[in-house]
């Protein structure tokens, strides 16, 4: 067991962890943040995407100890006091969600993009989401949702 200090969804924590596990296991099994999904375990589908120090990463290929001192955001950290984040709202409004299994990862990839660039081109959206597989939607409404959320974020929401 090793001591891990990190900030998770805005809250500083200090916990003992098995240094041999993956970040995704720590989030799901130790912190019970099961919103982060596992679709492949090899970084090939994006379902486990979280934001680490501002960058989208697939948490199934990140060793937990790399989170030492890091700022991690998961889907559970979005939205405040029951009010959804504009990306979450637009995913719902635009029909970007079907089975919902890729959704948390897809939203986290979108957030990492829009936090950095709230006026992305369609190519930039596609690049940001290229590592997040969705088998339900054909991606059409996901791109619409990200663009709509970007609009709102530019207006300061």
């Amino acid at each position, binding site marked *: 067991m090793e001591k891990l200090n990190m900030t998770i969804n805005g809250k500083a924590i200090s916990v003992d962890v098995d240094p041999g596990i993956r970040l995704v296991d720590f989030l799901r099994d130790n912190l019970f943040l099961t919103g982060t999904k596992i679709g492949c375990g090899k970084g090939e589908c994006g379902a486990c995407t979280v934001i680490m120090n501002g960058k989208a990463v697939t948490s199934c290929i990140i060793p937990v100890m790399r989170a030492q001192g890091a700022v991690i955001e998961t889907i559970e950290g979005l939205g405040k006091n029951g009010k959804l984040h504009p990306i979450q709202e637009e995913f719902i409004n635009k029909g970007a969600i079907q*089975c919902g299994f890729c959704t948390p990862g897809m939203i986290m990839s979108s957030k990492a993009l829009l936090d950095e660039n709230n006026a992305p081109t369609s190519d930039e959206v596609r690049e940001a989401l290229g590592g997040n597989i969705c*088998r339900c*939607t054909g991606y*059409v409404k996901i791109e619409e949702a990200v663009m709509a959320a970007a609009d709102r974020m530019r207006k300061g929401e």
Partner: protein
Amino acid sequence: MKYVGKNIPRNDGFDKATGLGQFTMDVSMPHMLYARVLRSPYAHAKVVKIDTSAAEALPGVVTVCTFENTTNKPFNTSATMVTTPRPAEPVRDQTIFTDEPKYIGDEVAAVAAETEAIAAEAIKRIKVEYEVLPAVYDPVEALKPDSPEVQPLYGNKEHHNVCGEIVRVTFCEHEPYSDEALERGFAQADVIVDADIKLPRVKQCQMEVHAAVASYKANGTLEIISTTQTPTPTKMIVAYAFDLPESKVRVRNPPYLGGGFGVRIGISGKAELLAAALSMKALRPVKIVYSREEDFIASDTRHGGYMHARLGAKKDGTFLALDTTAKLNTGAYCTFGVELLAVCGVCGTAGTYHIPYLRYMGYPVYTNQQTAGAFRGFGTPQGTAVVEACVDKLAKVLDMDPIRLRKMNTMKPDDKNFFPFSVGSVGTNECLDKAAAEIGWYEKRGKVQTGNKRRGVGIACNTHVSNAAPFCVDYNAVNMIIEQDGSLRINTAIPEIGPGSTTALIQVACDLLGVPFETTTIIFGDSAAAPFDIGSHATRTLYSVSQVMEDAAAELKADILSYAAGKDFLDTDASALTLENGIISGNGKEMTLKALAYEAHLKGKQFLVSKCKVPDNSLPFAAQAAEVEVDMELGLVKVLKIAAAHDVGKVINPRLCEGQVEGGVLQGVGWAVREEMTYEEGKGFYNTGFHKYMLPTADDHPEIISILVESNDPKGTFGMKGIGEVGCIPTLPAIFSAVEDATGVRFEEAPLTPDRVLAGLKAAGKI
């Protein structure tokens, strides 16, 4: 209508956008164990000896199950177990574990342990001695009498390696069908064309792998939380396999599942059965989550194989006769083999066009590969692929515009046909026109080009069904319950596998009854939520459950209004009353359903109805046009755009409906140009993960335009038809047609990989 036709955001959006919605993978139970499976490394072998002692000795291992200590009662993992109508019998050719594995990945043993890591280690310690036996992989090879027999016990007795039966679909408009009559039909033809197409196995790739948590208690109850898309049939299959009373078995979703596309109509791979077998031994909850690799190599795929068709027509283009043969690879076990081959014939060849003489012969063939089963479209895509190839060829031979040829032959509402129900409304020609306009058909088709990159446009049309009735058992029940405060709760066992059916169902229910959407709830995905429900498959969920709700809502409304008409309340004639937006009114009087429901409660009455019904059926029609660009020197096909026009009868929720089209189209695109399961003899399927399987990603998809056509079907509730599966069906032939337009070559094998396209272009002397 207040809700039908509106873009109402889905009711499960909050759960899914916040990560708070639970999937099977997220489920945990007290004292739960974790399971892993030992799979056969051989395509066909006999287990000579199995020694589990080293695994059992490993600390943390609780139970090891094999064919030696687990029930060997044969069953079928697909819902056909409980949906095959008399006089046919379901093919029960599977057991939970086997001592004679028939494909690479077949289940030999499983372990339940305190942790996943221990279970994985224990699997490595099981010693198995195999005697390798001869195997066969290709359906045409397997049909030859001297090929190894895959299922000596359960295969067709007359036809070597046929599972179940050779499926025949025949129709003759003016006389009883006979093979001679069919040939008379062809004899009248001025032109006969034929086409072949070889289709690959492709994988559903639903984002959540198969998973189940089973909890068996020594008092004889079994609860399963799993990824099934048919909780009630799954309950029946599990109860059958373990000889448990169905009343003691409950199967539910938690309540969400990460997609299905047909892969878990019945058992999810074998997850429910494996978890239950281990739990019954361990008397503790057991969780099994397939790895992505296991999901790829050990659960149903789409059927690949060989399609052939010949089409006879008059020289004016009128179709006369169609004769189609399908030889599809069902794999080691039957699952949906027979039914799927039937749908291939019925919807894939007999539904889109008016054809006076028709025959289809479907061979579901056993091979030593993993099972093929249901995948969006369920056989219709395979049939459509070869029929549309014939139609294009005929257009070429007759020098007719492919759209004009199609429009003159599409099924019309009064045409005689194979279907045992009326055709209903037909929007095919409108779909053809709209797809053509959107793709720019008349400006682009047939352009002569000389550069390296060439563009082409193509089109195809199709039909399907809106449920499985009357071909298979298909019915379901709903309970509609008015809570004590007047809000509506709908209970149904049907799951929400992703399309948003539960949202659309609430829209329909609220308009049928006259209550507000905001206060209505649906309880779904639970075999204990309501009486029998066949589940989410066959494009049926919204269509079929709505039909039951029509009956239920009518009865519920009558009960409410007659109660409200009583002298304690509105004291008037019930027939003068209406219920709208939760308010009962008439004859100048009104009261809220909320008030009435509570008053009723105080008198010991609740408004509730339980209804069960076999749905009618409607044919959804569609046409899709594709535009492609081909890099000739590399054989690289890029799909630029798909214009997808779908006759959905009546749109219930436009955005959700478009979502079904768009998602289906992209699966069709993948099938046409990139997706393929490649078998390596001795190793099994190469495609063990997403980087070895080229399904489309967010930065590699064409523009998709969905066009919804409303033909107002006379049978569907509010005029609707099904949409779920239809989107993926005509995409492949439309793309093949576009590639032909661009290159001059009609390809006969999918997918259009660079290798295949280049070889085809070379063979045709195009490069």
